[in-house]
């Protein structure tokens, strides 16, 4: 057998620590936070534990139960930090060598991750901070990785997250496993936060910033985690289906911006679509209609064009109407008007658009208005298109709109 070089050993320990970090970070953090009711202190203790692991595992080997090892070390770090006993902290590494954390100390971990997700979307946390807080607490993403997606500097986001954690601590918000009766009402805030993370990668009509796209992958992981924590709830499954449908179509949107109706369906990812179809069917079998089931169903209808070669606008009109009754949003109104444009023509669509308010800086409104005016032969179309162009952030979308402006 070839002797294993220290470098490879080091690599293996790093890899194991990385894997544990990915799969167990939220599990360990939520458990620590549930004990201490202090999210910031729990994060510090856990990151100290990961650091200790990277120092010790190369010498002592990877423990049989790395999670249990990390948990014990994190608890000791937290205890040591609290007592401010400098000597105890210094002695920790020695202590670990004499008394390595025993698996026997660790009964099966209770899973507090849902409690952690609920805490991140607690009403005391400012609505704009809930999504970044969840990305940090549940996935362990650093502020400098999250901040650009929210158009913030890392230091500004860091301060905002610290304030949120301090507020949760001041209100003594728990991170416990919620009672089954509490799950339903609080789930919608969690779904909302995950959807916001996913949507940063793919707003429906307007530009999608490629730098934000990787947050969609993180949102997918959050949705998958939520499904394992709430296996009987239909909406988390529908949210994951929604994310998968949109991810499946991503290859057809790039590199040049291509609107949904003109995308080459052969470029869509059939495996992801099949998985999304199964999830949506599973969600629907609970017979409890929700916002994300309707949103996923809309995407499912668009995706059907892959098989039928045409878009079922009637089905879309019905689903959009139901969605706007259940959860009215400006984006939903504009999307419904886009269906009206196809089914009932430009004048009907313009009637809806004229009634919509709060659209001064809403890019999809101006893009759709320009299209409706253009089809109606109205010369004001150019002014609306100029406004849509001025509000576009995505260079690919800007190129597509300026081409339209030059040719229409």
């Amino acid at each position, binding site marked *: 057998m070839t002797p294993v070089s220290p470098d490879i050993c080091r690599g293996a320990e790093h890899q194991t620590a990385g894997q544990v970090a990915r799969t167990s970070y939220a599990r360990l953090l939520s458990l620590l936070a549930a004990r201490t009711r202090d999210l910031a202190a729990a994060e510090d203790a856990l990151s100290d534990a990961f650091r200790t692991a990277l120092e010790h595992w190369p010498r002592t080997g990877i423990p049989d139960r790395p999670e249990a090892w990390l948990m014990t070390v994190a608890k000791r770090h937290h205890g040591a930090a609290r007592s401010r006993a400098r000597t105890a902290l210094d002695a920790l590494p020695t202590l670990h060598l004499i008394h390595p954390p025993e698996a026997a100390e660790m009964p099966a971990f209770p899973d507090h991750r849902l409690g952690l997700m609920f805490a991140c979307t607690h009403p005391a946390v400012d609505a704009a901070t809930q999504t970044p807080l969840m990305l940090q607490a549940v996935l362990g993403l650093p502020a400098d990785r999250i901040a650009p997606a929210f*158009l913030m500097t890392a230091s500004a986001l860091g301060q905002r997250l610290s304030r949120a954690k301090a507020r949760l601590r001041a209100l003594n918000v728990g991170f416990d496993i919620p009672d089954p009766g509490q799950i339903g009402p609080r789930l919608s805030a969690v779904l909302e936060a995950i959807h916001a993370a996913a949507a940063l990668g793919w707003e429906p009509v307007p530009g999608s910033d490629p730098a934000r796209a990787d947050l969609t992958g993180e949102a997918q992981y959050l949705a998958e985690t939520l499904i394992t924590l709430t296996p009987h709830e239909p909406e988390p499954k529908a949210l994951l289906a929604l994310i998968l449908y949109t991810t499946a179509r991503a290859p057809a949107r790039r590199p040049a911006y291509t609107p949904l109706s003109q995308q080459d369906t052969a470029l869509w990812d059939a495996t992801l679509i099949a998985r999304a179809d199964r999830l949506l069917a599973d969600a629907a079998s609970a017979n409890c209609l929700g916002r994300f089931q309707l949103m996923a169903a809309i995407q499912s209808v668009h995706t059907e064009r892959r098989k039928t070669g045409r878009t079922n606008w009637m089905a879309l009109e019905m689903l959009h109407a139901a969605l706007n009754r259940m959860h009215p949003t400006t984006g939903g109104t504009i999307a419904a008007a886009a269906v009206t444009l196809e089914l009932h023509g430009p004048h009907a669509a313009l009637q809806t658009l004229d009634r919509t308010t709060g659209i001064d800086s809403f890019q999809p409104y101006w893009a759709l208005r320009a299209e409706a005016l253009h089809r109606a032969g109205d010369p004001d179309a150019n002014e609306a298109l100029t406004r849509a*162009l*001025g*509000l576009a*952030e995505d*260079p690919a979308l*800007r190129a597509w709109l300026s081409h339209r*402006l*030059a040719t229409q």
Partner: protein
Amino acid sequence: MQFTILCYETAADFARRSDPEQAGPYWAGWLAYGATLAQAGVFVSGAGLLPPDSATTVRIGPAGRSVQDGPFAEVKEQLGGFFVIDVPDLETALDWAAKAPSSSSASTEVRSVLQMPG
């Protein structure tokens, strides 16, 4: 609050201004951006600048005035123009800055307008 949106552009951006293929989309993007700031009611003032090779730099040193052709510093991105906008806070200013065409091709800097004392 007033903020200045400083739009930095690369040599390639400046070249697009007069390239027959690319000048159309280039100017359409900037004109639309300015018009949209105006329609949103946040536009205060602004100007586009000729490319940096048209610059003349003046400096007064120990030997008196020195006048040189070209920009003060040779850097990859040069100021191509600016807008002054009036919005409630930095977040809104950054949101508008992100929509400037220079944000995707080079960079856009946002600075608060200095309030002179008195």
